[in-house]
């Protein structure tokens, strides 16, 4: 087991409950965190500021502390399923091979 602490830790914040009907301050905190829609996830470094923001909307979010920050593109890549197939033979390649042979 490694005893070295990673230098930066991140909060992984997912919005679970909407702020509709709540005071505008709460909605403002969510907007500041970058959570504009339900079930969106954002990563923020672990700091006192962010911790305070989370505390303000603690009933609406799910929070985890992680080592790695993922960007939107990376999360989308993880979500994307594999194609489920691969191309065994391409017609163009075949024709090229035949041309090369001749």
């Amino acid at each position, binding site marked *: *087991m*490694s005893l070295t*602490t990673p230098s930066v830790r991140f909060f*992984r914040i*997912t919005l*679970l*409950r909407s702020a509709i009907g709540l005071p505008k301050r709460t909605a403002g905190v969510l907007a500041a965190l970058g959570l504009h829609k339900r*079930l969106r*996830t954002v990563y923020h470094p672990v700091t006192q500021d962010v911790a305070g923001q989370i505390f303000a909307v*603690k*009933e*609406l*979010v*799910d*929070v*985890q*502390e*992680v*080592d*790695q920050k*993922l960007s939107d*593109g*990376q*999360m989308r*890549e*993880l*979500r994307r*399923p*594999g*194609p*489920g*197939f*691969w*191309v*065994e*033979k*391409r*017609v*163009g390649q075949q024709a090229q091979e035949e041309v090369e042979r001749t």
Partner: protein
Amino acid sequence: MLSLNLKRALLESRLPVPPTFLLPWAASLTTVSHTTGAGNVPPPLLNTVQQVSAEEQAAGSVTRKAQTPKPKRVDPTTTLARSATVAGTERPTTPSTLFSSPVAPLSESVRDLLPLLQAQGSHYITAHIHDRPYLITQGDTVRLPFFMKDAEPGDVLRLNKATNIGSRDYTLKASAPAPKLKSATTTTRMVLDPTTGSLESHSRVMPATSLDSNTAGASAAMAVAPHFIPHIAKGKVSYLDERLFVCRAVVMGMESEPMRMKEKTKRRNRKIKTVRSKHRYTVLKIKEVRIRGVEEIEGGGELA
């Protein structure tokens, strides 16, 4: 940027219990705060996990129809490290061939019943293209609900993601999805009230620190990814071992729908905007659905 290799390795891990970020999500998140700590699983849940993980050493079960099915398991889906190519549709390079010369053994049930399944005349397969299932058999013409841009007519596709292969009397199924594990923030330890008279004694155990869990990795015991990504796991399906079958399809060509006109306008506005749509769809013909023999699989035969 996560490379395709890492992504495939993460998503198609051979671990008995896959990393948590693969697992179904919605019910596991909560806004109730709990003691933080990655990797703590309540004792009842931990027992369940270990039980299931022991059963799920493999990913598949051959059941005989018209009888009480005994769920048995086959090997998990082979981990594939695909080379980072355009849309990942080139031939995948299997690390199993690189590292271990003897391929992972098949389970007892598969070894016993696969020949029976193979001996039956016609087979069907539920192949998944972009995670969408298609129930197909040899000779079928499939019109996909999308257009494959890089597929020319005459190209041969090898479909490698399948959940079911069956014949009249037998079905080979992929293993059930791994059990729902909760995220670190939702797990708690049970504390039983001693005054109720229960003989069990549970104490509130502080969860292991997240650092320890992270360094432990996705070990079978803790069954937590370094990083739980719940919604990534939503709807993930477990697939059959690719070595068990061969499924080939030929790209026949492209079809397109009749031209559709959509008029867009607002009330009391005379301007009408017209949007034209004519979607294209790729047509495949399934030219081969074959189940490989036990010797062929265990011999490590390539392709064919």
